């Protein structure tokens, strides 16, 4: 499968380029040489300090978040057989957001929200799967509706919290809601590990997903143990989403559009689509975060704003290019 190899090599190159750019750019621009020396543990102390403790953790966090969201979105779109599905459709990010906002209101700093956010996301997952399972049997339509309902409920709670919050805390809360990497101080290794694990599972998962795109009955007739595979994939997607929002808040757009972008470019073979979406989503978020840090420097934008500003035109262009064929 040489085309797949070429695709993955190109995307890996793009990810590395985005990473190098992220390490070079900032309040103190660093030349590529200085970055390389600092990465090797040599060169001046200032550059080493900036690269290792500030920019590299943040770039890795961005890559992990973008990759996880893109993979979760790709999984949800196939499982629900709905092109509008995204990682947040089951309400995972809403639960995380409510918990994170409560944390902010209680006086936690942006760097201390990981645990409340993760707990909120897990609680939301438990709730939505519990609701979908009630009444026996596994029913994807019920899962989707439970998720949509739950997400609406979280949305209302979020509005409530914003309305009653201390105005001084509002900017921090809004940044979290839009998705922001400003609070990242350490490399989120667990998120990167989860992303690596998903990429490794891409081949066997993708094989089943390719068949499941034909619908559950047909997939079963072709030999996929649908009743077993479906919940596993849903839970994987939900956990990936939970990890992503824990690191960066609810970054929009990446999970919805990156899978489509990749699909429009390389086709719909899930075995290739999953790792390609991971790389593309990660690169997009690294690039977006670099822009978010520098566009209005010294002010920083929330990265979620930039992902949309950057991704929407590209997406619409690709869509139209296909449409005219």
């Amino acid at each position, binding site marked *: *499968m040489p085309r797949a190899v070429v695709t993955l090599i190109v995307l890996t190159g793009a990810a590395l380029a985005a990473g190098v750019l992220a390490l070079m750019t900032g309040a103190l621009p660093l030349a590529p040489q200085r970055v390389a020396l600092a990465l090797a543990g040599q060169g001046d102390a200032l550059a080493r300090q900036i690269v290792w403790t500030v920019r590299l953790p943040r770039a890795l966090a961005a890559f992990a978040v973008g990759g996880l969201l893109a993979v979760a979105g790709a999984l949800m779109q196939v499982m629900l*057989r709905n092109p509008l599905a995204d990682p947040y459709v089951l309400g995972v990010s809403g639960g995380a957001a409510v918990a994170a906002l409560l944390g902010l209101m209680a006086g936690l700093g942006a760097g201390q929200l990981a645990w409340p956010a993760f707990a909120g996301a897990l609680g939301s997952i438990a709730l939505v799967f519990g609701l979908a399972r009630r009444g026996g049997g596994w029913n994807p339509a019920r899962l989707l509706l439970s998720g949509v309902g739950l997400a609406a409920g979280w949305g209302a709670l979020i509005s409530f919290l914003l309305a009653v919050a201390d105005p001084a805390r509002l900017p921090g809360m809004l940044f979290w809601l839009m998705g922001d990497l400003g609070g990242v101080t350490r490399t989120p290794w667990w998120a990167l590990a989860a992303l690596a694990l998903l990429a490794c599972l891409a*081949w*066997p998962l993708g*094989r*089943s997903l*390719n*068949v499941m*795109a*034909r*619908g559950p*009955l*047909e997939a*079963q*007739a*072709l*030999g*996929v*143990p*649908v009743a077993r595979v479906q919940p596993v994939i849903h839970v994987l997607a939900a956990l990936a989403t939970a990890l992503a929002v824990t690191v960066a808040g609810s970054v929009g757009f990446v999970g919805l559009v990156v899978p489509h972008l990749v*699909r429009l470019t390389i*086709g*719909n*073979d899930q075995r290739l689509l999953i790792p390609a979406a991971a790389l593309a989503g990660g690169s997009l978020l690294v690039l977006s975060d670099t822009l978010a840090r520098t566009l209005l420097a010294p002010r920083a934008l929330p990265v979620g704003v930039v992902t949309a500003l950057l991704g929407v035109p590209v997406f619409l262009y690709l869509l139209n290019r296909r449409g005219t064929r």
Partner: protein
Amino acid sequence: MSPLAARQLVLDVPGRAPGAPLDFALAGGQMVAILGANGSGKTTLLHTLAGLRAPRSGTVQLAGRAIGAWSARARARRLGLLFQDDVASFPATVAESVGAGRFAHQPPWRGLSDADRLAITDALAALQLGDLGRRSLDALSGGERRRVALATLLAQDPPVMLLDEPVNHLDWHHQILIMDHLARLTREAGKTVLLSLHDPNLAARYCPLALLLGPDGAACWGPSAALLTAERLGWLYRHPFACLDDGGVRVFVPR
């Protein structure tokens, strides 16, 4: 041992009285037509036999074992089903779509083997789709898409093939092509083929056995030559039929 058998099988058709239980054991090399009016339970029967739907009572035995006792993979290597409706098109090429038929034959970590590729090429060729392998599914006509779905089943290559109205959407040439091919598979490869049809003439011409699903769950089963008569078709479809003689071949036409 029978490749596929129904034991005291009562279909679960919502809102219908149980009707007579079905009891039959198919043999390798048999080709059986299922005839019946709309809503008589043809699709329900095929889905129940494929293990996709639970019966109200009774059992289905695949190669001597209860259908539910097989793993999905192992079952798909022994039994395949062509659905009545084609999948809503999803972005894939014809060859990729037909390749899904090989799913149950591949170990989880491997891609297509040479045997898989050969099965796909053969299936495409058998249905005269050889030139369309790289074409996108969206770009096909309804009849072509039907043949792609059939090719997927041929690539799956199970000993028991269930087909729900396989000649839907097909022109006469392709209807005959497919019925010829299925008949050849029963004759030369010993496949067991059970297919629902709407045309009693195709059933009479190709299927030595027929299963009639009558109104309200009544059913009868036997050699088509004896079973298919104008009166019985009239009962089956609640519409009078005439039987014409075309040089020794009986032809049924609705009056």
